């Protein structure tokens, strides 16, 4: 099974080609500014270098969230359209689970997190591929509390730049063996998405939306003001 995987969830732009769970080829550009401009050309050259065309791909895999809202949509729109037009499979993989795979060989709890401003993080904790703390939106103090309650001795923080919170993390998890990932250890690899995609459930392209993990501020404000519940997304859009 040939898998083309895409990550535009963070500032890194990565595309990869996997044959089942074996990585064939991967491109990764750090701190890329404009994913929308570079994604398709990167996919085109990855395919060309491997003598393949889009039609040869069996499964399109994408980092489905959390991450930059716009970035998530660039990657998922592209993957959805490929799968829908070519009648191939679409799968979405957690951005955080993919990040945690940077430490796949380590016997440690991996706390994968992306900065969500004001000391908040989109975060999850993984032992290997297993999610121990579900992907969610957490304040740092909340995250430290949950990690502290787990039995794991060795803990690695990855994904976001945690150096400015080093002291707070050390104080909150005083009895753990801590490490903060550095430099390339924080890169999001499409190859990891491709590996996880082998066992991920197949999605309906018409139904697939990013896993933002947060509604918009406008929606929270509206709910607070009116006391109303959110309806299903589909209730707000109608074909005319």
């Amino acid at each position, binding site marked *: 099974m040939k898998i083309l995987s895409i990550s535009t969830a963070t500032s890194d732009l990565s595309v990869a080609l996997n044959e089942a769970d074996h990585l064939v080829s991967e491109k990764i550009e750090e701190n890329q500014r404009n994913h929308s401009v570079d994604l398709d050309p990167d996919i085109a050259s990855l395919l060309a270098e491997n003598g393949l065309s889009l039609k040869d791909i069996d499964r399109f895999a994408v980092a489905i969230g959390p991450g930059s*809202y716009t970035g998530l949509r660039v990657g998922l729109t592209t993957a959805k359209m490929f799968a829908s037009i070519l009648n191939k499979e679409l799968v979405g993989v957690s951005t955080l689970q993919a990040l945690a795979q940077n430490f796949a060989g380590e016997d440690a709890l991996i706390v994968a997190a992306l900065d969500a401003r004001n000391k908040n993080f989109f975060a999850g904790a993984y032992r290997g591929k297993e999610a121990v703390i579900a992907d969610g939106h957490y304040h740092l103090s909340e995250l430290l509390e949950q990690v502290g309650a787990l039995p794991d001795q060795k803990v690695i923080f990855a994904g976001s730049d945690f150096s400015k919170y080093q002291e707070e993390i050390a104080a909150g998890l005083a009895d753990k063996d801590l490490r903060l990932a550095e430099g390339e250890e924080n890169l999001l690899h499409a190859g990891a998405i491709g590996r996880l995609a082998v066992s991920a459930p197949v999605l309906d392209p018409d139904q697939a939306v990013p896993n933002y993990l947060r509604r918009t501020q406008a929606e929270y404000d509206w709910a607070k003001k009116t006391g109303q519940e959110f309806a299903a997304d589909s209730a707000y859009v109608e074909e005319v």
Partner: protein
Amino acid sequence: MKEKKDIRILAFESSCDETSTAVVKNGSEIESLVVATQIKSHARFGGVVPEVASRHHIEVITQITREALEEAKVSWEDLDAIAVTHGPGLVGALLIGINAAKAASMATGLPLIGVDHIMGHISAAQLVEPVEYPALALQVSGGHTEIVLLKDPTHFEIVGDTRDDAAGEAYDKIGRVLGVNYPAGKTIDQWAHQGKDTFGFPRAMIDEDNYDFSFSGLKSAFINTCHHADQLGQELDKYDLAASFQAAVVDVLAEKTMRAIRQYQPKTFIMGGGVAANLGLRERMNKEIAALEKAPKVILPPLKLCGDNAAMIAAAAYNQYLAGNFADLTLDADPSMELPYAEDYK
């Protein structure tokens, strides 16, 4: 004689709060048009929230692509190009259409065409009847109020522009004062037909020697009148308020547009954009043009083609197709894209 091959274009439009796809043959025949509107969603907030708009666009994009093909009874092999609006508009919203179109172009090998949203609105005219050039267009919507000269099918130039608010924006703002839900244009238009112009609001820039507009002074005058009455505990007639506001807007739009028509002597006059659906404006323009000695052909696209839709994008893309203007996979959103200004723009 060999028959000319039909050119069939699938287009995407997602620049604001409508996600739309369409298949158009030869730039003039709509074979399908699908429009998914988010009005219900943004009505909660009293205006379009960009992040919410982007989220809705991605929910429907694959489905409405398939529907456009099914409705037109064509498959990808029957198409000649894929087109998409790449600006102006909300950047996050534009990116859904752009990435969908690029992915479709990659998956099918069909050439890609990037379309200016305003050129699209104006090109809705050719879905009604053929445009003869030079043509002149009055483009009025929530985001734009422009008089555009069409030199030929792909060279459009601005001869008049708004200095501040767009006409549609002014409707929404005074709508808020009158307690009319967003979008307010249709209701204000209806009320205006039941009232009289009794307030005599200012007609800004109407006598200036250019084709530009300004609506912020009118908006302020309107709001001040309402506040003042509020303080005195007076109740103003909402129909007369609407009629007075609309009369001021229509007066300026009609006066300046008629002057531009006299100067440029277009063969076709086109009215486009959401506010072109306004009946007050339509009636007035029809009447004034009919009174001209040498009247241009007038094209007022039907209401469905005045709002944002992908058929107009496919129509504009057809002109670009014939001119050989294609985009590549690096096509990006340009949220503040502008048509060029005419050389004699003042």
